[in-house]
């Protein structure tokens, strides 16, 4: 395929050597298989939940499941009102967020707006380390310190297992999560926005509350959503400190039963492991999976949007 006679290069020579081509293809393929693992796992999880919770939904109507307020799968007749569990879960989550959101956000504002560069350098890794402290440690703290403390001080009628201390400690656990994500988005707000406001004579407080926080609001919102999903899915703290009896109406000073604790109860064989109770496990898992899926995807999308706006 010569074009000009003085050219001596043929097309063959710009072809990759066969062996190299094969090797490159193979390596690429291996990496691809690794990546598809994640996809496979997600769909396997989804498929498993759908397939395994079918027997449950064949017997219990969705309305009864989602609308009922009595969770008593072992009574005769059994009752599968998940609302009782959802309500307990949400009350504990609300307590946790009530602690974590203000404290986390304030910490973030402090680190990004007030702290010196050095302090920020020191505090950020500390937050990261704290965010990773095993949750069983928090559970122990709730059970063996916070509950006795509350019983001795404000709430003598508090029961040994209760939703309140589980929620409070869960809040403490989530603070670093909220703080580090919010701090990052606050810090990413461009200087020029701040400087523009300062140039108009705004004080630091005004710049922070009227310019920086609004500009970062979507990212902060994402961190809140992530905190929410984290609180709903938290297992060890509630399994240790919140007890194993559903409360209706929800009362955080009494034992509470969350969705995750119920899952633990069923899986660890507190109940007779009949085939049907097993499908209850999957129905609950499905519920948990779907709700956290929604929150996680939402926060992911929001953070992406934010990054695109302030790269």
């Amino acid at each position: 395929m010569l074009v000009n006679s003085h050219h001596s290069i043929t097309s063959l020579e710009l072809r990759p050597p066969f062996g190299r081509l094969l090797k490159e293809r193979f390596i690429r393929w291996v990496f691809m298989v690794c990546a598809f693992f994640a996809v496979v796992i997600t769909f396997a999880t989804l498929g498993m939940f759908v397939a395994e919770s079918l027997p449950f939904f064949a017997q219990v109507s969705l309305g009864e499941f989602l609308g009922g307020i009595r969770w008593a799968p072992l009574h005769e007749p059994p009752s599968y009102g998940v609302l009782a569990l959802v309500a307990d879960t949400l009350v504990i989550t609300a307590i946790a967020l009530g602690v974590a959101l203000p404290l986390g956000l304030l910490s973030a504002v402090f680190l990004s707006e007030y702290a010196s560069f050095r302090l920020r350098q020191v505090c950020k890794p500390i937050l990261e380390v704290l965010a990773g402290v095993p949750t069983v440690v928090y559970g122990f703290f709730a059970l063996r310190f916070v509950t006795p403390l509350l019983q001795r001080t404000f709430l003598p009628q508090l029961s040994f297992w209760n939703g309140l201390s589980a929620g409070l400690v869960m809040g403490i656990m989530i603070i670093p999560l909220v703080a580090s994500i919010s701090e990052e988005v606050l810090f990413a707000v461009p200087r020029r926005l701040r400087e523009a406001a300062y140039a108009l004579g705004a004080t630091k407080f005004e710049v922070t509350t009227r310019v920086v926080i609004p500009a970062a609001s979507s990212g902060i919102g994402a961190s809140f959503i992530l905190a929410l999903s984290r609180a709903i899915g938290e297992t060890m703290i509630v399994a240790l400190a919140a007890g194993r009896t559903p409360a209706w109406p929800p009362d955080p000073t009494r034992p509470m039963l969350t969705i995750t604790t119920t899952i633990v109860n069923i899986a660890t064989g507190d109940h007779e492991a009949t085939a049907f109770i097993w499908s209850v496990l999957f129905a609950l898992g499905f519920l948990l999976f779907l709700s956290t899926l929604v929150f996680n995807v939402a926060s992911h999308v929001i953070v992406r949007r934010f990054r695109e706006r302030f790269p």
Partner: protein
Amino acid sequence: MKGKGASLAETTQSFLVENPIFEIRQLSVWYKAQQVLKDVTMDIPEKQVTAIIGPSGCGKSTFLRSLNRMNDLIPGMRAEGQVFFRGLNIYARSVDPVEVRRRIGMVFQVPNPFPKSIFENVAFGLRINGFNGDLKAKVQWALERAALWDEVKHCLHKSAFELSGGQQQRLCIARALAVEPEVLLMDEPCSALDPIATAKIEDLIHELKREVTIVIVTHNMQQAARISDYTAFMFLGEVLEFAPTGLLFTKPKDPKTEAYLAGRFG
């Protein structure tokens, strides 16, 4: 011969290149939906220095990078048309971009040595190309051709980041030269350098053109005039004019070229 669609007569090229190393035919490049190169058709002569000038954002870098298929690395890039390298369309299906890049080297705007020793920087291209001669001698040869040997021969194992900007850029040239490319593409190689370092590189280009073809993008029109044999003026993704350097600078045909050379925009 199929493929070579447009004939040169229809293009902005005012002269016939006898010995073209690149024959570019109706090359168009898109980044996502944005068309950056529009039907570029030109011949690039072998063992000469060809300069590409034009206002910022007109597609010079894109053009240069499409000559060794570096653009393939940019997600969302799409190319149409042909680039014949020694008569062979490098955008043909059977052609491997890696092979193309082995023959057509590149020097970037900002000096970008690897975070390794000076020696390893130069040796890398040799190693991956399966070079099995005397590695040290070859590295020395490349450094000598890049006029850097005398300055670094005692500290070959120092990190390349410890060199000055100009030295780093010459190291990058040595790195590219080590694999003996037939063409060297240079994208504003001097824009990050001071005048003395720039002069050194310009001298080097003069030396090198005896053995390799050089295509250089530059913002600096004096530089283009000083070092190049041919100059192409690009504007909004098109090559408006391509002529021997002397001719283009003295008698530009296109009014836009004239305006640009007079410093009225860009």
